[in-house]
């Protein structure tokens, strides 16, 4: 599934999902963090989970940005589900060491969220290159809903 398709899929699946596209540059992370913080707060994650998710998205995006080129696009899809919030961040990259299980980054991400998944798709139709991404899942506190 390509970047664009996964976004389409998320939107089709969930009318509340939000997507954001920015250039894959570190200076864009401030606005990314703000968006994630606002969405997670509005989605009623508890404040610790919001703060953790901000850190996690920051970490994941930094990994991706460092493994791609500045003219690449960083795509964030936030998908609020009944009992969890899933954030997919992805970009185009040929690097195969985005996030190594067992690394410190991996430990950080798994400490900050309930589930971390790496995903990788084939070349897009337009030939932009293979898509790699990190999927972060944060569960809602049970008593909130």
């Amino acid at each position: 599934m390509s970047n664009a398709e996964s976004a389409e899929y998320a939107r089709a699946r969930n009318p509340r999902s939000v997507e954001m596209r920015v250039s894959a540059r570190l200076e864009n992370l401030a606005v990314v963090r703000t968006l994630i913080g606002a969405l997670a707060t509005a989605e009623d994650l508890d404040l610790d989970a919001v703060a953790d998710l901000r850190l996690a998205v920051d970490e994941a995006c930094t990994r991706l940005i460092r493994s791609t080129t500045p003219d690449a696009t960083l795509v964030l899809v936030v998908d609020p589900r009944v009992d969890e919030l899933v954030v997919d961040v992805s970009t185009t990259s040929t690097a195969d060491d985005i996030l190594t299980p067992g690394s410190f980054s991996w430990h950080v991400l798994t400490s900050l969220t309930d589930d971390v998944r790496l995903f990788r798709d084939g070349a897009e139709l337009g030939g932009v290159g293979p898509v790699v991404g990190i999927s972060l899942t944060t569960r809602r506190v049970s008593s909130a809903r």
Partner: protein
Amino acid sequence: MSAPASRGSTSRSSSEYADVPDMFRALAELAEGTAQFQRQRDRIVERCLPLADHIARRFDGRGEPRDDLVQVARVGLVNAVIRFDVNAGSDFVSFAVPTIMGEVRRHFRDNSWSVKVPRRLKELHLRLGSATSELSQRLGRAPTASELAKELDMDRDEVVEGLVAGSSYNTLSIDSGGGGDDDAPAIADTLGDVDTALDQIENREALRPLLDSLPERERTVLVLRFFESMTQTQIAERVGVSQMHVSRLLARALGRLRDQLE
């Protein structure tokens, strides 16, 4: 005291103002408080305005309006002219520059954007802060926006907005008065277990010295969050700062490690 024609590099600016010492000597002849005294002093200020404007330009582009900077630098100049003692033997320019710079720096310190938050938001931020700690106690975890809204009997959207705005206003944080970062009590006993906790990490040999090089408080919150699995709220309570501050310390520490682990 003759004009310091032979003085090296510092003489460029001084020689531009070579006539100023004589103006001060003339001022010293006049009785303080008289109209002539006032007029002579004004003349000196006017004469030296380029000096103030020059310093204001050096601080340009740091987010403060140009006109304000010039204004503030000129205030500094006036103060320097008032305080300068021509008989003390020092050069007016080398006396005035630090005085003017000090005034400009004070301006930046007192007027950085984060202080100009509307009062309404500051009050909301404080209310949210105390409600958050109360609810955290009661629930045993950090509250959600809905829980805060219910507790404060406020509109949920307003609470969300307040929380989001609050997280970007650094100096608003409840603990901002708490001074530097490294004066917190060190929690030495919690750091003893780092080695065992590090066992789960593959590149721990590289990580270890980096952890050691972190500032005390950043290392503490990092270890508590990632190796002792405490929540940010629990860490905040333990270390004695706000959860928001814990978050900032974690972000900073992770950033440092990231840069160095590459």
